[in-house]
């Protein structure tokens, strides 16, 4: 499991073994239900138990702005700032030839279609400034520029940092200081 070293794994395993059987049963059931029920929103690809996620359904959010992120975790991080009131689009990763990730492996075509079909005033690229993030931002930017204004959030973020680890103030500031993609 990501982020869990051998020692922590052992501790978790021992902890579970010591619990009453009913507890373990409940945990297993919960995991199974999560797996069965949580899928991806058919519009923005954020994690969602419904076919269309809560953010896409919300009528009080600006439908003319889309914030593009790599991962569902980034949506959660940005939502915590309470700064952003538009919609999202989750790419499901970054362009990384070394990992066999090309544009076709990401939800890019769906994004282009979405921008093409709807009245979108601005697409905000909120992707970490790693070289893979940069390539992804530029790639998506090139595809979208014929249709709409594309901006990127301003990164004063820690070098090689992930959105996930940026504190809320930094993220909110990055969102405010966004600039148009060249």
């Amino acid at each position, binding site marked *: 499991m990501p982020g869990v*070293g*051998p020692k922590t794994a052992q501790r978790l395993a021992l902890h579970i073994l010591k619990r009453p059987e009913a507890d373990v049963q409940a945990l297993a059931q919960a995991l199974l239900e999560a797996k069965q029920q949580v899928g991806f929103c058919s519009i923005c690809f954020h994690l969602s138990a419904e076919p269309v996620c809560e953010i896409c359904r919300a009528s009080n959010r600006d439908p003319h702005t889309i914030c593009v992120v790599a991962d569902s975790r980034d949506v959660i991080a940005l939502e915590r700032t309470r700064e952003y009131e538009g919609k999202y689009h989750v790419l499901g990763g970054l*362009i*990384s*030839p*070394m990992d066999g990730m*090309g*544009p076709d492996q990401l939800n890019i075509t769906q994004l282009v279609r979405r921008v093409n079909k709807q009245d979108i005033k601005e697409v905000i690229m909120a992707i970490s400034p*790693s*070289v*893979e993030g*940069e*390539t992804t931002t*530029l*790639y998506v930017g*090139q*595809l979208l520029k014929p249709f709409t204004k594309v901006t990127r959030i301003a990164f004063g973020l*820690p*070098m*090689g940092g992930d959105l996930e680890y940026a504190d809320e103030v930094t993220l909110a500031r990055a969102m405010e200081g966004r600039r148009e993609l060249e």
Partner: protein
Amino acid sequence: MYLKTLHLRHFRNYREQQVEFLAPKTILVGENAQGKSNLLEAVELLATLRSHRALRDRELVLDNAQAGQIAAQLERDSGTVDLAITLRSNSRRTVSLNGETLKRQLDFLGIMNAVQFSSLDLDLVRGSPSERRNWLDTLLTQLEPVYAYILQQYNTVLRQRNALLKQQRSPHETWRVAEAAHPPDSTQLAIWDAQLAAIGCRVIRRRARVIERLAPLAQHWHQAISGSRELLEVRYAPNVQLGEDDPLLVQQAFLEKLQMRAIAEQHQGTTLVGPHRDEVEFTINQTPARQYGSQGQQRTLVLALKLAELKLIEAIVGEPPLLLLDDVLAELDLNRQNKLLDTIQDRFQTLITTTHLGSFDAQWLKSSQILTVEAGQISM
């Protein structure tokens, strides 16, 4: 700067060892394979976060241990700092400064400076271009810590671009065309090109800058050691020509060269243009030093380079760096030993390893702290 104490825990063949440095020169004496070079390696890691011997942190951690630690107390003009590196056999290393773990390893660099000189350094003259690039990069990292970040970015772009070129490589004759899974994605390639050129340009300009400052120093020292008969020239030969020192022009030249080599790159499935193909040329009286050479002349050249490094770091950082001499002193004749001694005096703290004290000049011995290294243990 002065290294006051070094503490090794589960590092290489050291279980737990505290060392206090009591004189500007320390001689570490011991049989082969006792841990002398290991100790210098620990200091090298503190200065550069790199080891010229280890590829993985796992090798640095005592066999069968989970983690190892190098801790040091360093005196600088601005005050005393505590440095520590924790190395793990199964996960990433962490670094700390004055007891506080740093988020960016970059912030650890440039606090302690050291010049390493070992018998392996003859490869600087005789070895492949990658030896010289490595040497240059290590020096640059100490002078401009942000360079470590730039270089890492460059290498990532390079690996990514190579992976893309490989995927898009025109299928081998024996394959059927239909099996070429990835049609060329020229948009993506163009973006990787732009990144390679932009970051590559930063690498090239920094390398050019440091060679420009180092070359006259090396020339001076080479003359001083060889008795002013020979003229050493150190020249940077970048793969992408650096006409004028204007980032935009360099990037443009970079992109043009990529264009020129596009077919070859597609064919070979690898990047053929950029600073990963740079060279540093050494010539003595206009003859390439590699060919020129007697071992003695090549040694003089390497010694001159090392002295130039010391002086350059001192000039830029404003404090004399440490000097690490691994086995080399005994290999130098008395004349060169004395030149070295004159230069470092007591200003550059120096750690010296040797298997026997016999080959040392009496002057060296007199002013040095002598430590004995035996099976990962150090005694006075």
